[in-house]
């Protein structure tokens, strides 16, 4: 089209038809919400031992002698809820980290938060420790402390003389911290005996078998706080994904948004890792899958990723419990083995 000095004509009556954000958002949340609810309803009913829902919910049988109810309410339901919570936290933290770092390859673990958490957990598992903090048992407490330490180090390094964080420094500091903590983890494992190393390695593979609702109740407030902060950020993240100067010129407080994004995404990641270990792949594969389906607008990608992350992890854990039953596959292995090829297939199909 030639642009000259003449005034533009009135808008044509036939405008490009992209549905407005409201209907796209409503449709996306309804779709992904239905998937998440369906997976959370289905997963507790499926397992290595088959249970009767009618019997499990029969209040005439005392709970102590109702095996079906015990399996449902003590073994499976907490596990499904933990899966939903961890999946939602990791997937949405992935979205926020990718926007903060302006890098679609970032994961919740890129900045070293999970390596810090893992080191904390390793130390307690191998050296032993009995310090329980409130509802947190020693391993999650140490893992939260490790995650907080890692986040504090990265934050201090990236917050130099300029008020706006350097994403390059953040990335390099994160990568270095990951390597450093991994070396420490290996060193601690090297000093330990075989049984302890097995427990430690098993923790690193991720496990949603939380055993009761208590650990979930402990992690929930942290994830809810992160979620409330996430909910205020998508527009600013959209603009920062274009260019941080342009974002500032459109009224975004870039330095403050970066700090809130870093804090909230680190908080969600720390809580998720403390609850279930460092379950990989969700934080990167779920946001990308969602973008392939609904586009890149963070106002849609963020809630859709949270819902789909929950679905993805609940289903993965269901498969982990049942595929080789009665043997259980660590859920972190399942997420990568199922998610990896599926993601590659989608990429190839798109290209």
């Amino acid at each position, binding site marked *: *089209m030639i642009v*000259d000095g003449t005034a533009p004509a009135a808008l044509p009556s036939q405008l*490009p038809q992209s549905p407005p954000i409201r209907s796209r958002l409503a449709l996306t949340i309804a779709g992904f919400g239905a998937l998440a609810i369906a997976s959370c309803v289905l997963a507790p009913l499926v397992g290595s031992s088959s249970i009767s829902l009618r019997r499990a919910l029969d209040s005439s049988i005392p709970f102590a002698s109702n095996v079906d109810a015990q399996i449902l309410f003590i073994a499976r339901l907490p596990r499904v809820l933990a899966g939903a919570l961890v999946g939602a936290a990791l997937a949405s933290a992935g979205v926020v980290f990718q*926007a903060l770092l302006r890098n679609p390859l970032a994961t919740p673990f890129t900045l070293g938060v999970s390596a810090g958490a893992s080191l904390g957990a390793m130390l307690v598992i191998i050296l032993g420790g009995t310090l329980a903090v409130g509802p947190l048992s020693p391993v999650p407490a140490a893992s939260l402390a490790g995650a907080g330490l890692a986040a504090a180090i990265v934050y201090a390094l990236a917050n130099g003389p300029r008020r706006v964080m350097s994403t390059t420094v953040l990335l390099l500091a994160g990568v270095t911290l990951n390597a450093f903590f991994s070396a420490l983890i290996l060193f601690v494992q090297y000093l330990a005996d075989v049984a302890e190393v097995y427990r430690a390695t098993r923790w690193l593979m991720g496990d949603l078998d939380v055993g009761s609702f208590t650990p979930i109740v402990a992690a929930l407030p942290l994830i809810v706080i992160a979620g409330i902060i996430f909910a205020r950020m998508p*527009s600013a993240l959209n603009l920062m*994904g274009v260019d941080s100067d342009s974002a500032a*010129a459109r009224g975004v407080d870039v330095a403050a948004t970066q700090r809130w994004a870093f804090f909230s995404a680190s908080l969600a990641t720390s809580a998720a890792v403390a609850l279930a270990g460092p379950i990989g792949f969700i934080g990167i594969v779920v946001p990308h899958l969602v973008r392939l389906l609904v586009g*890149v607008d963070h106002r849609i990608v963020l809630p859709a990723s949270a819902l789909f992350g929950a679905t993805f992890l609940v289903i993965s854990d269901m498969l982990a419990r049942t595929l080789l039953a009665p043997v259980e596959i660590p859920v972190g292995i399942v997420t990568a083995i199922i998610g990896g090829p599926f993601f590659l297939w989608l990429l190839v199909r798109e290209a």
Partner: protein
Amino acid sequence: MSYLVAHEVSYAYPRRGRAVAMPAVSEVTLAVERGSFTGLLGPNGCGKTTLLKMMAGILRPASGTVTLAGRALADMPRRVAARHVAVVPQDTHPAFDYTALEIVLMGRHPHLRPTQLEGPGDLTIAHQSLQSTGTLHLADRPFTSLSGGERQRVVIASALAQQPDVLLLDEPTASLDLGRQLEVAALLRRLSRENDVTMVMATHDLNLAASMCDTLALLRQGRLLHHGSTADVLTETAVRQLYDVEADVQFHQASGHLTVTPVRRIG
């Protein structure tokens, strides 16, 4: 009346290590009239971009103030300032694959609350902005699939969707071929004339500046050498002072503006 004014603004980028911080802009005072088209000329590294960023409120001056209609920009909430001043950078490289329409709709950000979704009114403004930059047919195309000229026009549309009184442009035609340069130039001239938008444009293209700008400001090593009407400022002496280049400056009848022909570099 002067609308956007930089009063003795200075800025120095912090240096790493033991090096001393180098001043990028030193005590520059520049007053821009409402509805005028001002060109910002000077060699690489003379502080054009830094001055533009301070006038946009993106960078806070180390000393001095920027005022918009008499109010200090630093005292305004960012969102409020962004309703008046928009910026068109030289290049835009989004990290995600936004569509052209999504990029333009982001221009509505300062007019919406942080969690408010854009409504039909915002969509109409976005469509009008695309229309006036000749990019309406590109609305649903991914931004990264567009050519350089198309991208720059979409970015200008995004700035227009902000409905600003002032548009600050940082070498908006630098990455474009000759045809696209003239296209964007004509677009900017028309917007300045019809929408009464005050324009400040940093550029290396002296002929483009001569064809578009009412006034020129000359910057060298972070200091303002001269600010005046294009006819007064754009002289052979000025070109020598700025670029160490001997040039021939003539009035060109067919184009109706001054033209600059570089002859040789001095020294």
